[in-house]
């Protein structure tokens, strides 16, 4: 379990986050939705210790959590296989990295350069790079925002399969309500200026979640509820 307690932060004296607290249980996926500029990414960077908060603290998080960026952020001078091991560093388990690459369909592409991959393949490689370090916590900052809908759904299924195997906790920042509801156990809604958590929706659909869930009436209803809280948070 890790806790973010009463975190506040500002940029050039403009408040970005105000008194945000969050607890994530082991194996839990928490999604955060909110309008642009509400401080979602700032909260994630603070959780990853990439940014020191002005107030508050983060407890219980391992020294090196997994982090998935908005863009794949692949190192262009490393081939697919070497990119997959970058976060794990010298402790990378070669067999485990290869098995992850196989799992996401990149096994045959391990000797390619990043520029030879499609957008979806790059994002899958970014996911493998994060999980290759065997993190207990994964922080994901709108990782699928740039993908087309079909690839995005494939990535959701991929992520849930890997989560079922590795049982990492995850905080997922996203703009897409359906993505949040499909992947998460809880969806938090943030309001802007300064960023605060204004609503929490519990997602009780059983795991493993099949693709057909997206067309379920209960799923649509919950998406509607979250979208309504998001609209009022943005108003």
């Amino acid at each position, binding site marked *: 379990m890790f806790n973010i307690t009463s975190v506040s932060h500002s940029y050039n004296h403009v408040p970005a986050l105000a008194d945000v607290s969050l607890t994530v249980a082991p194996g839990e996926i928490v999604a955060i939705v909110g309008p642009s500029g509400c401080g979602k990414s700032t909260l994630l960077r603070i959780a990853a210790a990439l940014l020191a908060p002005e107030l508050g603290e983060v407890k219980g998080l391992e020294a*090196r959590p997994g*982090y998935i960026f908005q*863009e794949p*952020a692949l*190192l262009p001078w490393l081939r697919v296989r070497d990119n997959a091991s*970058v*976060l*794990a560093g010298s402790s990378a388990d070669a067999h485990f990295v290869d098995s992850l690459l196989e799992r996401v369909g990149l096994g045959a592409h391990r000797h390619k*350069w990043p520029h030879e991959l499609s957008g979806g393949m790059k994002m899958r490689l970014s996911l493998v790079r994060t999980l290759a370090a065997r993190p207990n916590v994964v922080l994901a900052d709108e990782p699928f925002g740039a993908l087309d809908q079909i690839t995005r759904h494939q990535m959701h299924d991929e992520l849930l399969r890997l989560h079922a195997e590795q049982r990492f906790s995850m905080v997922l920042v996203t703009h897409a309500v359906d993505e949040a509801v499909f992947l998460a156990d809880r969806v938090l809604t943030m309001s802007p200026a300064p960023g605060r958590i204004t609503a929490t929706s519990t997602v009780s659909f059983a795991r493993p979640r099949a693709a057909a869930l997206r067309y379920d009436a209960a799923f649509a209803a919950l998406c509607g509820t979250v979208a309504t809280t998001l609209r009022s948070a943005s108003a």
Partner: protein
Amino acid sequence: MSRSPMSASRMKRLRAPLASVSVFVGLWYGLAYSLDNNFASSDGSALIVPPPHRLFEGLNSRNVERIATATGISVATALTGLVIAVVLGSALGLFMASARSVERAVWPWLIAMQVTPVIVLTPIIVRIFGPSFAARVFVTVVVAFFPLASNVLFGVRSIPQSWRDLFVLRGASRVETIRELWIPASLPSFFAGLRISAGLAVIGSIVGDFFFTRGDAGLGRLINYFFLDTRSGPMFVTALIASLVGFAFFAAAGLLRKLFVDPWHKP
């Protein structure tokens, strides 16, 4: 007979450079035959500008030997200077990138070195070091140094935040970050700087050579020697060789970039 698509595209690529070379040769001929008294010497050789087909007239074995020796000296000077400039320039670029305060302290000196003409610096360097090979190399380093240092600095400064974050998340040490992130990430701009520095190294070795009045002559001093001769052919041949040396350095830098960067760098 049908032409393969490869050779057709190569022909298309060559069309523009061939046209410009043709125009250049045409202008050269035009100049050679339009100058008054160009062929007024007793043996009819060109006094001012030799036409291209008579370029090698007056090039006896003694002159060929002189040109070969001078080319060797200038190439050795330029190459040694360029290698030192690469090592020092890259190291200084990385050092400046490590802290803004270092950059602020060093940058004005680099600018001063860059904007001071080599022709002004060379006599000072010769006065300090004497007319030695080391002094020739020093002049070349001074000329070739700046593009490498500034391009490596620019390359490191341009590293995206997400790449930097990756190494923070990994808990990489300073040395690991420099070796595995800074150096490879700055390679594209380093090689852009190397192409400029390669040409500058040749210019530095030739221009600096004018001041080395003792020892074997490099291409710069030899051009000056032939300038005082009545026949212009050897001077033009020497100038042509100086250009070819510069071109070879430039092309070698491009080739290195092609080998080490082009396979993965797609801007």
